[in-house]
């Protein structure tokens, strides 16, 4: 997936900046986790089955995190993704009688709508992203419960949908595959299209962006819609995996996604974003979760260990 920005890491005097070290931290952490995994659960951890399992698990949050990278690049945040995931699943679920494709259309439409409302509230309603999407967190969850009448919708009859959740292509689980595709497309969009450059520009210096003729409002609106799209894709994969649409899924997905993005190196203040970093961040969390589970750690110890690992990983990346 290569390096994200096309800036060299050499400063005015030709000295190497410390950035590369930072960018290497996550891969190193990942390798360390894998080594630990091999040592403590030999024969279980390092199987292609288990690693694909990690990737599949990571895919739901991961796809959302890719969208979130763009939101955070503009200096925003989207706290509503978890509830939006539930609302999208249920919206699709209501169309269940019409088949898998209608499910997908419904889920995507709901997710895009939520993204668009977020964007509109932020851009035209001038509500700060944190609050706008926090309100949406509450609204979307309410909507999901209301539409579902509080009970999960079984999707056991939707074969195509279930293929998206648990099918395989050349031995690779479909969600894992789609996650990788989304990550690659996200990388290209961020680094190789005007839209990506503009999202970073708006986050880095909004007035500079305006001066350059960019319309920041449009870009900001677009990143929330983009995240909506990612949520929609995730909702399809998740519902397929669960063969049911539940109004209570997606709890705290927002924090996991944001954490992955930030650990990856995207600045919460905006103006600096890396999809590669996000990808590694998602994988790191996936591995931590997988390892702690393989070790059968009780929840409370998992919490402590996970928190400490996050701290260590980020402290290693600290600047200078």
């Amino acid at each position: 997936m290569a390096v994200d920005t096309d800036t060299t890491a050499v400063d005015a005097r030709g000295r190497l900046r410390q950035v590369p070290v930072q960018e290497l931290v996550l891969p190193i952490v990942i390798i360390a986790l894998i080594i630990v995994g091999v040592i403590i659960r030999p024969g279980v951890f390092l199987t292609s089955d288990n690693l694909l399992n990690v990737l599949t698990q990571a895919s739901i949050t991961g796809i959302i995190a890719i969208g979130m990278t763009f939101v955070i690049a503009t200096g925003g945040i989207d706290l509503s993704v978890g509830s939006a995931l539930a609302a999208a699943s249920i919206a699709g679920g209501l169309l269940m009688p019409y088949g898998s494709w209608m499910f997908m259309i419904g889920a995507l439409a709901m997710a895009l709508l939520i993204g668009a409302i977020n964007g509109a509230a932020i851009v035209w309603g001038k509500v700060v992203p944190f609050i706008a999407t926090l309100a949406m967190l509450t609204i979307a969850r309410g909507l999901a419960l209301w539409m579902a009448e509080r009970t999960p919708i079984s999707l056991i009859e939707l074969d195509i949908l279930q293929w998206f959740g648990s099918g395989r292509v050349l031995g690779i689980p479909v969600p894992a595959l789609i996650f990788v595709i989304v990550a690659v497309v996200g990388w290209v969009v961020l680094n190789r299209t005007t839209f990506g450059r503009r999202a970073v520009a708006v986050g880095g210096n909004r007035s500079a962006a305006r001066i350059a003729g960019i319309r920041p409002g449009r870009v900001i609106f677009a990143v929330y819609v983009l995240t909506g799209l990612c949520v929609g894709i995730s909702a399809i994969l998740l519902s397929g995996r669960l063969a049911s649409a539940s109004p209570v899924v997606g709890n705290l997905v927002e924090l996991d996604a944001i954490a992955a993005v930030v650990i990856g190196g995207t600045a919460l203040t905006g103006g600096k974003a890396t999809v590669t970093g996000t990808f590694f961040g998602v994988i790191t969390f996936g591995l931590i979760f997988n390892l702690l589970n393989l070790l059968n750690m009780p929840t409370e110890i998992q919490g402590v260990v996970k928190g400490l690992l996050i701290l260590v990983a980020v402290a290693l990346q600290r600047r200078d």
Partner: protein
Amino acid sequence: MSDASGPLLEVRGLVKDYPGVRALGGVDLTVTSGQVHCLIGQNGAGKSTLIKCVSGLVEPTAGEVRFEGDLLPVGDPNASIARGIATIYQELDLVPHLSVANNVFLGHEHKRGPLLNRAAMHRETKALFARLGDEGISPTAEVSTLRPAQQQVVSMARALSHSAKLLILDEPSAVLDDVEVEALFGVVRRLTAEGVGVIWISHRLGEVGQLGDVVTVLKEGRTVATELPPDTPVDTLIRHMVGGRMEALFPDRGPSRDTTVLEVRGLTRTPDVVDASFTLREGEILGLAGLVGSGRTELLRLIYGLDPVQSGEVEVGGRRLPPGRPDLAIRAGLGLAPEERKSEGLWLDWSMVRNTSIADLSRFRRGPFTDLASERRDAARHLRSLNTQPDAPERAARLFSGGNQQKAVLARWLLRSCRVLLLDEPTRGVDVGARSEIYRVIADLAANGIGIVMVSSELAELLGFCHRVLVMREGHIVDELDGATSTEEDVLQSAVPVHHTTKAG
């Protein structure tokens, strides 16, 4: 459509009201192709607002802007850009974490299909730098790693990338040293020769005579004089600007005393500052000259303890300062007015009072509480003593002009009654009127026994009233000159490296 014989840009009756402030009150301006039109005026006169109306960044309240005879849509930067109006704004307008090439082509990227054509953008960026005579900047470098002067060049390249018919430069020389300004003149002259019209805004009135073809003076949002010839005496220009006579620009040098108040020995942080040593006496004004990037700012930061030193020491009044502790430096009697006024000197949303009192809050402590009344009283007194205009100490700093903002920073150290004041480019972006006031304040402080170290990129002001001038070159202090008797030539001779060919680091 376009009328070749008519003026390039015609501004008629332009009015811009901000809530509570009339920034422009009916301005007229005519710019012709191939000419450098100098726009001068005091801080807050409305120069930046005027050009922002032209460039579409700000929507005027009334009035019209015609470009090549056609009415320009208002409040649409893209329309202005598309018609060939390129603007370099006063505030650096780059995106820090994007590459140089991305910044240059921001908003009008080259594409190949849906993707960016990076090769083409790099190639053209290189070509633009060549045209600007500055080939030392890599198109792939991240803008945040560049020095301000280099960033200025990137802004220029961006303006030129639009194949502009009208180029607007808002105080481009503020961050440049004399050598770089000279290079920029060359670029502008080449462009005008190609038929480009230029609006040049500056507080350095000397530039008017060197570069300008016509001069317009703004005062309080109105055109007070226009189409003045470039050889108009500076005195006349100043009279138009301030609306009256002005006393001598530079105050007299007072005597300096014999007591040493600051001693710097062998201060080093390679490669920016190497083995810098000097002493400063009470009441002395010591100038620090040098090209941009010669290490003057870094030297002040090292003295003040803002950056870690590699070796060397600083003594104030005979006592050694612990390194890396600005708070203790302040306690020992040091004060710093930083170079980047807005980003390092001020809280723009705070009142002038708060900006003034921040370095000495404990003075107003009554028991556990802050005595707001005496804070206000003392701060207002010092602001007033500097003749801060308007006299509204409770107003947010953002609403004051650059020169008056600078006074708040100075008042901060007056309040703290420090012994040594380190001033980094104290007059950058400050109009002549305010400048002479600031000079006077500095001279007054010195007369009261405060030692002053003043960094400036304008040799005229260093030689105008400093006792001594130290010249820095590539991190070394290479020369010491007497302020009263030396000439700009003397300084430049020491400041410019012998092998000086390009400005690149």
